[in-house]
């Protein structure tokens, strides 16, 4: 059956679109799920898919999906591979990986409608460069700017560093084309807004391939901003900082960047601008100069005496180095360190408790932890996110399985505290396979809805099984 499937795929798409060499399958067997970056150095080996298919257009993509469906083999969509939750990780040797990297055409940019169309496999850094050249910006700057693709970003409901002004990918995606599990192609028109039943984009936004594959997207573009204002403020601690941000957001303004870093995150980059133990708030506003000036005035009034200005230099440092982590990400595993990031969100009334309880509990319960810090990086009228950064040193006698348990213990604490305090288990990395365990506590009665959707579209559970919801 296997060789039959492969030959069918080959005759439908062409010999060179179906890769069976071990090297090619190995490359697309994993994403950047943190624990693997350590386990790889402890003898852990990925599960390889049956083959990798590289369709060149929507039509080929649809054909590939249909053939897999007929043969009842699992399908894993693969984008930039920068996901951090195992969404694109293969856990079944029968699976077929569909890598969309050849769907890489960029369409027309409309100045009048301020939008652009691009295929799912276009790297966001390439699309950004393309629109920049024409005088526009995408307004979407995830830290994985160098790594992620447009389809992957939509599929994980990603967010960028300037989100407080421009929104998450869900605010930027106007329309799209997708392929359903039976191989049908669907199109969702790009319109500014509509009232035509539930919004179908949301089946794909954050779907992580669970009921379809994103083939093409139409996203907003913005004219390049004219002016910028930057300012950093020192505050006594994280709680005080959260309070300042809450008051600013309440004014209804949308500075592009609103961040709060706790003491541990400040020590290294901003130590020269503050006192020990303080936290630091960073603001950046951009757009027309009158708008920027108005936002500046409001921020200065609201901050008042609650925080002390630390000038604009810290914001420049952040801007220059905001994506360095993407370079360092793989180094830790080699040193035997487990490093991960966990992002959750909560309402203003809960978020301080989530941050403090989590830090206390991890610190008390997991003695291997060397580093646990948090920042708030995406704020809203009603609340904000916390992005925890964790480093742990497993003892040298731990096996690959033990390390996985240690990793899980940390995750369990953070997700438990989040749910207990009314927060959401995921702010922007998505669920993948690693986080699916917590979906029941997150969705409660809603889980049934999600399962019903899954069943209706994908009755054989072939689309990226184990992602979002456990298969059983």
């Amino acid at each position, binding site marked *: 059956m296997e060789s039959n499937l492969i030959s069918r795929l080959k005759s439908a798409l062409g010999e060179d679109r179906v890769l069976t060499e071990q090297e090619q399958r190995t490359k697309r067997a994993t994403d950047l799920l943190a624990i693997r970056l350590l386990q790889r*150095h402890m003898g852990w080996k990925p599960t390889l898919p049956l083959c990798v298919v590289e369709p060149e257009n929507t039509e080929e993509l649809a054909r590939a999906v249909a053939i897999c469906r007929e043969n009842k083999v699992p399908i894993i969509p693969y984008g930039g591979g920068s996901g951090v939750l195992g969404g694109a990780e293969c856990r079944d040797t029968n699976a077929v990986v569909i890598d969309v990297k050849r769907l890489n055409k960029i369409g027309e940019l409309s100045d009048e409608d301020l939008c652009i169309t691009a295929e799912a496999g276009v790297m966001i850094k390439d699309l950004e460069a393309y629109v920049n050249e024409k005088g526009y910006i995408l307004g979407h700057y995830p830290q994985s700017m*160098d790594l992620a693709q447009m389809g992957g970003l939509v599929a994980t409901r990603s967010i960028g560093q300037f989100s407080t002004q421009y929104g998450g990918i869900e605010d930027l995606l106007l329309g799209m084309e997708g392929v359903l599990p039976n191989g049908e192609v669907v199109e969702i028109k790009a319109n500014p807004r509509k009232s035509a039943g539930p919004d179908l984009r949301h089946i794909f936004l954050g779907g992580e391939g669970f009921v379809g594959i994103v083939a093409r997207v139409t996203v907003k573009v913005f004219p390049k901003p004219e002016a910028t204002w930057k300012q950093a403020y020192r505050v006594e601690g994280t709680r005080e900082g959260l309070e300042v941000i809450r008051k600013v957001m309440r004014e209804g303004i949308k500075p592009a960047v609103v961040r709060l870093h706790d003491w541990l995150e400040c*020590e290294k980059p901003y130590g020269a601008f503050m006192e020990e133990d303080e936290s630091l708030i960073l603001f950046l506003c951009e757009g027309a100069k009158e708008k920027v000036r108005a936002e500046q005035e409001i921020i200065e009034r609201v901050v008042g005496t609650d925080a002390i200005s630390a000038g604009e*230099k810290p914001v420049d440092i952040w801007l220059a180095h905001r994506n360095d982590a993407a370079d360092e990400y793989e180094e830790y595993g080699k040193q035997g360190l487990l490093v991960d990031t966990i992002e959750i969100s909560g309402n203003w009334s809960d978020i301080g408790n989530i941050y403090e309880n989590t830090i206390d509990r*991890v610190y008390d319960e997991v003695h291997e932890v060397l580093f646990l810090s948090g920042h708030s990086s995406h704020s809203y009228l009603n609340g904000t996110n916390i992005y925890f950064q964790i480093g742990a040193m497993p003892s040298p006698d731990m096996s690959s399985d033990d390390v996985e348990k240690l990793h899980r213990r940390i995750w369990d604490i953070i997700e438990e505290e989040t749910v207990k305090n009314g927060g959401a288990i995921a702010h922007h990395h998505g669920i993948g396979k690693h986080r699916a365990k917590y979906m029941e506590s997150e969705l409660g009665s809603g889980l049934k809805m999600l399962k019903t959707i899954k069943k209706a579209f994908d009755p054989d559970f072939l689309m990226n099984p184990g992602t979002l919801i456990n298969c059983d």
Partner: protein
Amino acid sequence: MINVYICVKQVPDSKTIETDPLTGSLIRESAGSVPNPADNDAISLLSQMQNNCPEIISAAITMGPKQARASLREALALGAMSAYHLDDPALGGSDSYITAYALSQTIMHIGKADYVICGEKSSDSDTGQVPGAIAEFLGFSCYYGIIEFIEIDAKSKSMIAVRENEGIRQTIQISSPAVLVPKSGAFPKLYSSMREKNAARKKDIIKISVSDLADSNPDSYGYNASLTKIHAMVAAAPKRSAKIIDSEYTDFIRELLCSENDESGNAIALSKAKCTDSKDLADGVFAAVHLGDTHITSELIGALQSEINASKVTVLCNEHYANDVKLIANEVIAFSSAGSSADDLLLEGVIDYIEEISPDAVLFPANVRGRWLSSKIAVRLKLGLTASCTGFIWEDNKLIQIRPAFEDRLMTAIYSTKKPALATVREEMFPEAKKADTEGKIIKKQVLAKYSEKYKIISEEAVKPAEKQFSDKVLVIGNAVSSKTDFDKLVKWAEDNEMTWGVTRPLIQGGLAPFEKQIGVSGTAVKAKLAILLGVSGSRKTMAGLRLVNTLLAINEDPDAEVFSQVDYGIIGDYKQILKG
């Protein structure tokens, strides 16, 4: 009770330093700061000593602005018992000589020291000269290259350790007081736990100002007191752009592989050119110190000849080496004395020479003994000393010394305020000395030196230097190569051409090569003369690992590939066709 002090430093993070595009000067605050990486070995050694001997009382010391407290917190978290912060506006702009002076004053202020532990060097200034100078100011002996701690005896305070320098590994018994300098990377990396970090945050850091020190005169410190000054600073990253080779590739590649010339794209050569253009003929008095290796000494002379057209160089050495160097030197001054060690003899000999002749400059090799000797002389004679020079300029009868800092990201041009300028010279940077037509004259000098070394050698063995993972010529295999057969062919091609090889990340991901072979941000940074990039797109993540390669050649079939704007030579086409010849 054994008092052990550890000197730590907070340094700008070299990975993230930036320079002003116009002036080339360092934007210091933009870097953020981190504990100096080599200090971890110092802390690790301290922690082993403390585990071995409960009598130890330890303190961490730093000199620097307020963010330096982070380094002290880290030392406290990892076991130092108390912490002292020397912080005073008067200290701004101190060079390594003054830094060592201020630290030694601080140590004397805190109390009597039995041992002082220092990291091998700081990543920002890279001199490695502070430990030797501290030892000289305190009158201690100084032991570089410690790779293993064995034990310490609480009663006699003497300790046994293993050191390794220039191919010789010795187990030695050291008596206190002494400065100990562990070899960078030799001790296990220590990480503080969250618990230890929090405990350290609650501890007191004792602040010390210049007015607390025995020498409380602010004029003894800072920029004005420093004996070396910065003349200019430029970023060391040259802009490369590919010259496209569109015919006779085979010959071109062969030539590159055979060529010893490394002018093109050479980061250091380029940025030196930017410091200043003057190239006067230098008619000053110059000396090079010979420690035993004729090739190294030949490079010291070659540096002066090739860089500043020095017409005459005198070599200073111990008597039994005189015949080795007379062919390359214009003059040899050979020291002899009864009953002293080789190093003590050379030390006193060079000091006598400087006092008698007052030369313009004296050069030393930038190895452990060269650094040790030069820093002792600098302290004894109060002379400026510049470490690990990679270039020289002769201007207004003054030797301007060019040296890289921040792991070669920045070039600084430095001059000494007094003559002679002392400088250590980085190895493998300069051509050998021209062979003289006549042998240099040997002048013998009797020197008064006494035996000062305070250690006993327990055992000694020669060690082979660790083989370098990447040689002078490196083949970088990119994602264009994805089958095992093609890959194996390329590895063979590299070996046939006496090259070592590395890969981009996709080949690691595909299981074709082991992790150690990855080049780039999360792999190795290669230092080599030549690298050939085959089917490499030129992503920032790969290129970060090739910054220090002198000449880069890329072969890629895509004429628009990013890589062509980041290499010196480019060949457009299928690598299989191109390498056929």
